[in-house]
């Protein structure tokens, strides 16, 4: 799975997710990537794209849950994203997510050995990481 969250010069946020799903899937199985609110969500506060064991992200409505925690509980983005990943882990799922808010704060929690990930700042500084 790949994903991207972005904040433009007008303050607009967007999120996208694209995937090949899981190896050996049967019966037209669909994971969280195309399901708005599960593997992908954006509003005027935050944008989220997820990667991982899709069924858990669907059941926890993971991407929307991050947005809801920010909107309703006024949680900082990093805290909200970590709580959702922790909930997924507690249920037995794994994976991670990237999240960006309207002020340019980013969170990239995951509970696997690694997640291919990267960020770029307003002044063009690139950071890329793979492992924990």
């Amino acid at each position, binding site marked *: 799975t790949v994903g991207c969250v972005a904040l433009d010069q007008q303050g607009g946020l967007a999120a*996208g997710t694209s995937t090949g799903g899981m190896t050996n899937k049967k019966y037209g199985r669909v994971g969280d*990537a195309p399901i708005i609110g599960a593997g992908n969500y954006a509003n005027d506060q935050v944008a989220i794209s997820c*990667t991982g064991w899709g069924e858990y992200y669907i059941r926890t409505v993971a991407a929307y849950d991050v947005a809801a925690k920010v909107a309703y509980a006024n949680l900082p983005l990093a805290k909200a994203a970590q709580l959702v990943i922790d909930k997924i882990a507690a249920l037995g799922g794994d994976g991670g997510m990237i999240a960006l808010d309207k002020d340019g704060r980013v969170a990239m929690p995951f509970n*696997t050995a*690694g997640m291919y990930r990267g960020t*770029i700042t307003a002044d*063009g500084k690139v950071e890329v990481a793979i492992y924990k």
Partner: protein
Amino acid sequence: KRYVLAIHGGAGTILKKNMSDSLERAYVAELTKSLREGYRTLQSGGTSIDAVVAAIQIMEDSPLFNAGKGAVFNHKGENEMDASIMDGKTLAAGAVAGVHTIRNPITAAKAVMEQSEHVMMVGEGAEEFAHSKGIVLVEPSYFWTKPRWDALQKILERDKDATALDHDDKQSNTKKYIDEKFG
């Protein structure tokens, strides 16, 4: 720091001891290329939607990631892809699922969002819609990559060995290999 763009290329059992230096460099190069393409779009006044599409297309075109070219295989040996996109400003959203011939599924998701009254389209219908909107379609063979094919064969081989499993339970047997797909 004020971040304007973040990307991921999947999560899973990614261990440094299993990664060659050249492969690691290739991943870093593709991730950097994706970030720079998204950033270039933002710097030229593009919307966050445009930047998301630009960044994701780079990763879909790379055989390294499980999306577009490099997508994993389903049980039938087909590449079956999904994508979605959402505009935070308007709450507009678009998605496609179970597509086999759309070169960049994220562009089809954007077309669903911007050029239809719907949010999600699946399978042949999604491909027909994408074609009608000028989205690039390719032969399914475009998505074939040897590492993904070999991964499927390995799992099918293991499934064959797992004779104690009921036939319908075999899909759940993929659970123990779940990390092989990297998200």
